[in-house]
């Protein structure tokens, strides 16, 4: 009897103990301090969380989201499944402590949008302003539409954990969806009709994603300026019949944004199928033909991998999006395979790069509006067996007015005259030098030589670089050449007088 009582009380005690310890352990292991405090692998994330708005000390409303509030759905937390998941992590760690954390943590929308936390309506309304001209709307991303088999959830974008930040949105994730672009190549610009007149420039092979339409449209994020691109012609000027060229007029003509804004996007966000790079398929998979056959199926690939298995950048390479790069170097690149720094004088003239400390000029007006070589050099001719692209007044008139057709010719005439003048003075200086060489002291000789070399170099900038690339600057440079030659003549004449 006594033994039976003992047994019953022991069983009850045991049950009580088990119940108490179960809830105790359950309570204890649900604390954020348990996750961050007991696992040293979680220290970084734990610290980042503490400095994040999800911690009450940084939250404007004093609310706090514990680890399990986000990392499990509202119904899942404090369940056996949750504990099991934790134990599985522990087991995996004990099995191989050096293994990298294999699986990205998945935060489901249900956790973020649970009652008392974020509300779908308020988040959707939220518009972010990064800079004066770059903005972002949450709204468009809340459509429940799958993107190539990939549902857009909160953690599609808000996923990156970096030091001091529990999660953030890296810009690259925006670019990966919005800016996967095949850039246009030189061969793609051509004239539509064959009689040499340029009516419209079209692309043989349009970029696969255009900045003018669809998800890559520039104006989704950027505010497109409406002011005139012609510094001398502003809207509301005296002559109301002339409409200045703006971004909008260019867009109406169907000109691709990337024909001026070169290389704003770098990288294609493609997936390496090999294992040479860190983010290829074969980093995780074994080499198998059947595997690679299915690699083109975006829906399948996204369905299989995201969000549980991999991040976007576990497979995709990064797409870079930068502000203006040098729009001339983009075209010069093709030449520079063989010729080192080809067309550098043309570039110097267009960009107004200072020649030396004394001679500098303003950039050509077309330079500031990102117009590159191919904008004017449209006529295709064959010269010495090479395809050469030449420019003519036609191209000026195609964009501007009929009066501009004459302008290029005027510039050419002027510069031809100027160059001829400089050459004449150079010849004069050389003749005089040959005549009076004997009179010069060693010092004067070296002075004359440096002057002549300098002058010829300046003359060459305009001769080789063709001064029409920047008329005013070319004339300034020629003035430098004139100065050198004339100084030489003066110096030489001076020696004649002393004799």
């Amino acid at each position, binding site marked *: 009897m006594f033994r039976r009582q003992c047994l019953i009380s022991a069983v009850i005690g045991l049950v009580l103990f088990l119940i108490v310890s179960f809830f105790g352990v359950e309570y204890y292991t649900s604390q954020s301090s348990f996750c961050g405090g007991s696992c040293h692998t979680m220290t970084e994330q734990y610290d980042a969380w503490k400095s994040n708005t999800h911690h009450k000390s940084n939250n404007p409303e004093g609310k706090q989201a514990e680890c399990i509030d986000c990392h499990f759905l509202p119904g899942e937390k404090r369940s056996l499944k949750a504990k099991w998941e934790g134990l599985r992590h522990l087991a995996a760690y004990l099995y191989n402590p050096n293994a990298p954390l294999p699986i990205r943590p998945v935060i489901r929308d249900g956790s973020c949008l649970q009652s008392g936390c974020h509300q779908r309506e308020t988040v959707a309304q939220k518009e972010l302003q990064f800079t004066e001209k770059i903005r972002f709307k949450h709204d468009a991303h809340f459509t429940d539409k799958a993107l190539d088999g990939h549902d857009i959830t909160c953690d599609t974008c808000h996923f990156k954990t970096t030091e001091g930040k529990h999660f953030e949105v890296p810009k690259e994730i925006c670019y990966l969806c919005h800016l996967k672009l095949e850039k246009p190549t030189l061969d793609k610009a051509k004239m539509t009709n064959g009689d040499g007149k340029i009516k419209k420039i079209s692309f043989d092979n349009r970029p696969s994603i255009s900045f003018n339409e669809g998800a890559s449209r520039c104006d989704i994020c950027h505010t497109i300026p409406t002011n005139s691109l012609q510094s001398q012609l502003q809207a509301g000027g005296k002559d109301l019949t002339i409409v200045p060229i703006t971004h909008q007029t260019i867009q109406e003509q169907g000109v691709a944004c990337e024909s001026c804004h070169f290389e704003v996007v770098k990288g294609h966000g493609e997936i390496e199928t090999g294992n040479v790079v860190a983010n290829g398929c074969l980093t995780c998979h074994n080499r198998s033909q059947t595997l690679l056959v299915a690699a083109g199926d975006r829906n399948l690939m996204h369905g299989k991998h995201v969000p549980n298995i991999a991040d976007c950048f576990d497979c995709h390479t990064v797409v870079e999006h930068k502000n203006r790069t040098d729009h001339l170097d983009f075209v010069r690149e093709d030449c520079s395979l063989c010729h080192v720094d080809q067309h550098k004088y043309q570039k110097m003239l267009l960009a107004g790069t200072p020649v030396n400390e004394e001679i500098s000029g*303003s950039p050509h007006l077309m330079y500031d509006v990102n117009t590159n070589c191919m904008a004017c050099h449209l006529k295709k001719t064959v010269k010495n067996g090479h395809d050469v692209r030449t420019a003519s007044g036609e191209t000026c008139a195609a964009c501007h007015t009929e009066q501009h057709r004459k302008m290029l010719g005027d510039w050419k005439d002027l510069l031809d005259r100027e160059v001829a*003048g400089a050459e004449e003075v150079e010849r004069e200086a050389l003749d005089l030098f040959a005549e009076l060489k004997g009179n010069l002291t060693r010092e004067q000789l070296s002075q004359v030589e440096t002057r002549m070399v300098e002058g010829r170099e300046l003359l060459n900038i305009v001769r080789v670089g063709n001064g029409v690339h920047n008329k005013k600057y070319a004339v*300034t440079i020629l003035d430098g050449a004139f100065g050198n030659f004339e100084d030489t003549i003066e110096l030489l004449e001076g020696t004649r007088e002393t004799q």
Partner: protein
Amino acid sequence: MSNKKTAEISRRNFLTGAGAAAVGAAAMVTPGVKLEAAQKKAPRWAMVMDLRRCVGCRACTVACKAENNVSLGRFRAVIQEETTGTFPNTKKGFLPLMCNHCEGSKEDGVPPCVKICPQFPGERAKYKNAEGKTIRYRSGGTYKRPDGMILVDTKQCIGCGKCIDACPYGVRSFNPFVKAGGDTTKQVADKCDMCAHRVDNGVEPSCVNTCQGRARIFGDLNDPDSAVSKLVKEHNLAKADNVLLAEEGTDPHVFYIDPDNMLKTLYTQRKKGNLDHYVDQIP
């Protein structure tokens, strides 16, 4: 070529010795005031307007019109005026305006009117300075001479009017009676030339010569002994408060001694276009 050479010689004569005869003439016209280029460096002509002394008599306006044959209804030098306060404590402020003969932007040293001129750079020109060094420059429709004067060459000007729009001070206008040499269907641009023809002969500009209160002081900024240099140094005039529209970055070379802050009250708050100054504002 030969034309240029004679021009060069005449200029050299002036600049080398400032021409004894010319200076003598100048001394007769304006006793006690001599114009000499600084011996060491090329001159940089500038003007100081002493607003403490200006009484708004407009003798400068009249002298300028007489000297330069400025056309009817147009002015190269004007006085703006404003009455402040209530009777009996009223005060009248005067602000003489003219071309600022700007040095131009910091980057390339070209003023906006010259930068926009389609005829600049035009013909080459040169002269010899006091040291005998040849100084070369480009003329054009409108251009800056190495001594700082912004001039219009009526032969090269095509009358496009771009310089008139580009000038932030509104000191340029078309001359309704002179055709542009480059395009005879248009009128030539007209502006204050700081009486280059007088200065080249060693005489002060007409407006300076006539100013009874000596409110206008003209001279070489590169010469540390000139009245202009001394005033600029004494009143610290090279700062933004003492020139018109310093924010335009044009580096104007007409400085104002301005104790009543006329530049701020009268000029900066003016209605654009309303006070374009080739029209005088006589109340």
